[in-house]
């Protein structure tokens, strides 16, 4: 088992009811690297994160995290594994009934027996890293979207995880906040020596900070490479995605009967 590969996904398929969501996914996430998974909405990116986190089981294929097979873990092993992972959800998913301080302190109180003074130092450290130490007494309802996202980030790194996963961290943010979050993701990855998985469709921000990119479309990996390779790519899908073109491999029109035919049908039919 190559020790430099934290996450290794081999030939993973995932289907829900009858719909196939992921087909033949092969990925290798090296340790210490920041990897982005990009694709348009509904292509299965979030499903991938859920598979890695063990919330879903693949219908076939192998998924190894730190050498251990996630789908085959028992409940206790899964929970032990999850303690070494941090996840940032799309809208923060902060616990709304407790303060910012308590949100970040949550994991420390749940999983460790550290005394309150030590927890206090750690919480303030994490909040300082995201620039919100002064807001520790506020409630989540009082935070703006960007601030809430940053607090969720602080919470995700609370126990210095080895793998951090971000689900659409840039969604719905203003340019300044986006830049801030992007910088934080990069800095934290390097400072903690962690491995980061970034699921997003924000191409420009992502390409600035990541080491490697996987492109997913319709449940399959259609392209991969370093940011430079991606920018220089001639693949039509990558091109459409990176430059935001309206039509290309991802069609503009929802599949339908040809327009003239539909119009004629309305005139002729009753």
């Amino acid at each position, binding site marked *: 088992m190559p020790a430099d590969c934290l996450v290794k996904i081999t030939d993973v398929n995932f289907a829900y009811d009858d719909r196939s969501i992921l087909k033949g996914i092969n990925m290798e996430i090296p340790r210490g690297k920041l990897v982005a998974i990009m694709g348009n909405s509904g292509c299965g990116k979030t499903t991938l994160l859920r598979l890695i986190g063990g919330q879903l089981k693949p219908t076939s294929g192998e998924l190894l995290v730190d050498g251990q097979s996630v789908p085959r873990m028992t409940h206790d092993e899964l929970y*032990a594994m*999850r303690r070494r992972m941090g*996840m940032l959800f*799309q809208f923060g*998913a902060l*616990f709304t009934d407790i303060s910012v301080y308590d949100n970040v302190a949550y994991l420390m109180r749940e999983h460790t027996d550290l005394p309150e003074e030590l927890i206090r130092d750690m919480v303030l450290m994490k909040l300082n890293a995201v620039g919100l130490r002064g807001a520790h007494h506020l409630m989540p309802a009082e935070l703006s979207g960007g601030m809430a996202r940053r607090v969720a980030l602080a919470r995700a790194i609370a126990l210095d995880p080895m793998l951090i996963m971000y689900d659409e961290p840039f969604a719905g943010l203003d340019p300044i906040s986006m830049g801030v979050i992007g910088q934080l993701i990069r800095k934290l990855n390097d400072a903690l020596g962690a491995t980061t998985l970034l699921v997003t469709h924000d191409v420009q921000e992502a390409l600035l900070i990541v080491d490697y990119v996987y492109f997913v479309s319709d449940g399959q990996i259609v392209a991969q490479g370093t940011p430079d390779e991606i920018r220089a790519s001639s693949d039509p899908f990558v091109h459409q995605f990176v430059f935001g073109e309206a039509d290309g491999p991802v069609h503009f029109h929802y599949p339908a009967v040809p327009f003239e035919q539909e119009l004629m049908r309305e005139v002729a039919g009753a």
Partner: protein
Amino acid sequence: MLKGTFCAVLELIRAAGHRMNNALQTLGFATRFFFQILLYSGQSFRRFHLTIREIYFCGFQSLLIIVVSGLFIGMVLGMQGYETLQRYGSSEALGVLVALSLTRELGPVVSALLFASRAGSSITAEIGLMKATEQLTAMDMMAVNPIARVVAPRFWGGVISMPLLAALFSAVGVFGGYLIGVVLIGVDEGAFWSQMQGGVDFRFDIWNGIVKSFVFGTAVSVIAVFEGYDAVPTAEGVSGSIKRTVVYSALAILALDLVLTSFMFRGV
């Protein structure tokens, strides 16, 4: 035309079968869920402050409505009871009438119905909203079992609060009956209390009432937590779950009341 009606009937049967299938699946899931709650209840008691918080929100905050309703029902019982009893010259049995009606039936049942609509719906709303905003998923991903941490304390909070509320309802109701019967109408005070004490047996009436309220509390709490946990994570989904909590709780309470009453008061 015959074929048309035949198809329509088949369609109806298929739809009914589908709904029955869904209902059975939900019932099975709910039962498994109930056992999971019991399994993961350790934390609710080891970290008792979690449960205390829930007892505060379901029990303490329901005090006002329970006490006021109990008082009103006791007073109405006093009035109606007197009106009927005095026709047979037995107005001194008012105390027994009020006390038995309350401790055996009205106390457990009405307070359970009120509890379901006040506390049950808020439990469902809380859990449903946590599910809709992905807080439960976040917890799961952080290796914190959401059933142990969020669901079980609320369940036990409800189970502990319910009998206390029912007892309070009955006690306040008796007092209400006393207010109307003795203070307002003028039934003899001594007869009121002594006949009551002679007619109400602790083990038979009061204890059975407590057992009933305990059973109702369990049923309402399970339904409330389950509907919240099973809610569709959208606004309509959560509101649908709340509606189901109140309706199913009410039906469950009344059905269980029938079953329990037939067991407990057989042949009396």
